[in-house]
């Protein structure tokens, strides 16, 4: 016989469940922002301008602390006592960030360690060395039959280093899905990007800031693994192999697309957008610019007064795109835009650290780029590439999550008039006191 529920005794449970159902339904139908806590990077209002010839030297930075963003190290042995036989690496464990705005521009200062020294080699898509993946089989000889299927399906050639290692000549981006999910079954594993420093086959250093523009409350900053475009069908015999293994040879995503919403990426490339980079002069040549789909107005202005700049990219659920050019790095999302060179950068390498300053007007200068409003908070993600270590494309160090960046309407907080150590001790003391109060209550309770 079933026992009759005791409503009176469990009233709190029923009220709680009812509240959960009601509030859960409200949030599902019409999400309201969850309660926030102060966190992340603050861009303070300052007076002054960026000094891009010596980034980080401006007086206003002295009043603003660094935010230390931990990065996800990829393909690296770093501090762990574990074997890692990978030539490419996620060499940047952290990046230090400061942010400010002066009424018209936002200024972001990044600083990160690079123990390999600056790489000034050009980018693959301009005139730099190709993104060549190394594939291998750790358990024996490479499956050359499969390697032939793979490379022919994506119109690539390859050369063998030895019986277990090969280098595929050409960007692995279109084949990343097959490399990730299928090739290992056939004894072909991705190893890293090919590097030969003595022959100059390495990649530019890079830094990127991703600005999330979607509406998700907890978006992911990670990009999808996929094919050349959404719904890409892997052709021929390779497609049949993929289908037999995964059940389909259709790739849902484009490689580099974002899982939800859209984001604007500001990317500084040492070999191409930095004045000392090997390929910088391509951009000062307006004829070359026009051939690359950059607007005439932007090209002529830039060639008459060149400066360090950053490239604008856009990623959304359909793919990764260039903004304002004809598709130098990725397919173009827009036509020519006069604001192509509107993002300024200054950079220097000293004492084993790169320091790069990004400057851009607050208002969006091109379609699909972030419009920044004082008082608002934005989700940003950070990434760096160490080119001489073989980092390029998806081999990089990234912040594991978006970091809130608040554009404060006030200036930097005044330093406290008493020594920091005293205040730190006081803060710790308050916390210890709170713990002590809790324990006293606890002890009193036990005695009773």
């Amino acid at each position, binding site marked *: 016989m079933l026992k009759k529920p005791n409503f009176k005794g469990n009233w*709190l449970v029923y009220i709680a469940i009812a509240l959960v159902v009601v509030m859960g339904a409200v949030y599902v139908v019409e999400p309201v922002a969850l309660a926030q806590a102060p966190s992340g990077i603050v861009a303070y209002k300052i007076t002054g301008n960026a000094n891009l010839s010596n980034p980080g030297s401006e007086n206003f930075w002295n009043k603003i*602390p660094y935010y230390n963003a931990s990065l996800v190290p990829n393909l690296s042995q770093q501090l762990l006592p574990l074997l890692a036989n990978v030539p490419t690496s996620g060499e940047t464990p952290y990046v230090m960030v400061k942010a400010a705005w002066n009424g018209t521009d936002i200024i972001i200062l990044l600083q990160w360690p690079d123990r390999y020294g600056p790489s000034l080699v050009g980018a693959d898509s301009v005139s730099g060395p190709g993104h060549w993946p190394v594939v291998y089989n750790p358990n024996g000889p490479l499956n050359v039959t499969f390697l032939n299927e793979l490379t022919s399906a994506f119109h690539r050639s390859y050369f063998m280093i030895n019986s277990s290692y090969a280098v595929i000549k050409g960007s692995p981006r279109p084949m990343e899905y097959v490399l990730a999910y299928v090739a290992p079954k056939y004894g072909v594993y991705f190893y890293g990007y090919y590097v030969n420093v003595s022959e100059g086959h390495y990649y530019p250093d890079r830094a990127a800031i991703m600005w999330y523009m979607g509406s998700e409350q907890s978006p992911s900053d990670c990009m999808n693994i996929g094919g050349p475009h959404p719904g890409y069908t892997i052709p021929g015999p390779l497609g049949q192999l993929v289908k037999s293994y995964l059940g389909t040879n259709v790739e849902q995503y484009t490689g580099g697309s974002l899982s939800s919403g859209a984001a604007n990426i500001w990317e500084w490339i040492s070999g191409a957008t930095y004045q000392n980079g090997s390929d910088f002069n391509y951009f000062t040549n307006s004829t070359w610019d026009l051939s690359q789909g950059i607007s005439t107005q932007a090209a002529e202005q830039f060639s008459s007064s060149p400066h360090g700049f950053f490239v604008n990219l856009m990623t959304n659920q359909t793919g990764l795109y260039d903004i304002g050019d004809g598709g130098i790095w990725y397919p173009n999302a827009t036509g020519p835009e006069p604001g192509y060179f509107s993002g300024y950068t200054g950079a220097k390498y000293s004492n084993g650290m790169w320091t790069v300053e990004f400057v851009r007007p607050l208002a969006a200068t091109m379609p699909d780029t972030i419009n920044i409003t004082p008082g608002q908070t934005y989700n940003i993600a950070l990434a760096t590439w160490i080119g001489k270590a073989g980092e390029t494309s998806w081999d990089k160090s990234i912040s594991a999550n978006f970091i809130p960046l608040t554009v404060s309407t006030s200036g930097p907080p005044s330093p406290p008039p008493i020594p920091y150590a005293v205040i730190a001790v006081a803060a710790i003391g308050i916390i210890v006191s709170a713990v002590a109060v809790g324990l006293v209550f606890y002890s009193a309770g036990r005695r009773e």
Partner: protein
Amino acid sequence: MSSQEVTQFNLIFAVFSVLFVLQFALRQFLLPVLPFMPSPSSSLVTAAGLAGTFSVAGVAVMVSVLTYAARVPLRWLYFAAVTLAVWGGVVAGLVYPDYYYSAPWITVALLLVALSLASMALALRSLSVIEIIAMLPFVAAQAISLISYVLNVLEEYMGFAIGQSLILPYITLYMAVAGALTSLAMSFIAFRPRPGVMARYAVAAALAFGISFPLYSLTANNVMMQHIMDMVFALGLGILTTPTSVPLISALMGVYAFSIVSLLANPSDGHRYMYDGALMAVLMATAVGSRALAISFASVIAASVSVYYARGRLSGNVGKAYY
């Protein structure tokens, strides 16, 4: 204390635990991980997102209810702080969107951190020495995370140049290793050689193997999958590590699954280990999560006061004095 109150508290705690696990699995872990699956369906992603949103709203309700229901010292302070931080923030956001970097709200956040630490201390006080040792990795991870958060707030919002160069690469990996070993030890301590208990442990072991082995096989000799899963662990679990240690993490996942399932399924000492297991999960999950939401701190407080209350109640020491 009446059995009715015990039943009521257990039910509330169970609802909180289920919602917390759901929001962690769906919102914090699965959503970032799904894009790495070969062919995730968009309807699955949408369903997971909606269920995660429902769960996190439910957790926001339950943290207040739990701090009210747990008759612990300073419970009205905990209740008021949690409710103010979680629901006051929602209301404040509707009328003044910039509230979260205003001076009063920064004060609320710091108070919440202090109460989180105080509640953790109370929870530890109610455990046995062996349990405290077993819990230390989780408590350390949480404490490091909270202190790091306070330093960030002091620097970014209050201008204290304390020099937060607190670079702790792989700290969460080390904590995860230590936590796996100690939670395994706790599950062994809880073991009783009875058929029912043995059957539950066998199920936990099978589940752990089912999670761990495929992941280990996938990543043991595949650098690219190590790379991918490295990002998955970072995004989904907050464990920053190197790709080469991903097979190790795969094994740890199995150890965690075994330990927590066996503890939760173990009725040998009432709900003793269930509460410990739940506290472990909350401490680890919130220690590595984003600190931009008040719900993270509130969850730590809710789980901690629950352990303190439940353990005191089980030993007969705590209860009526705090009604």
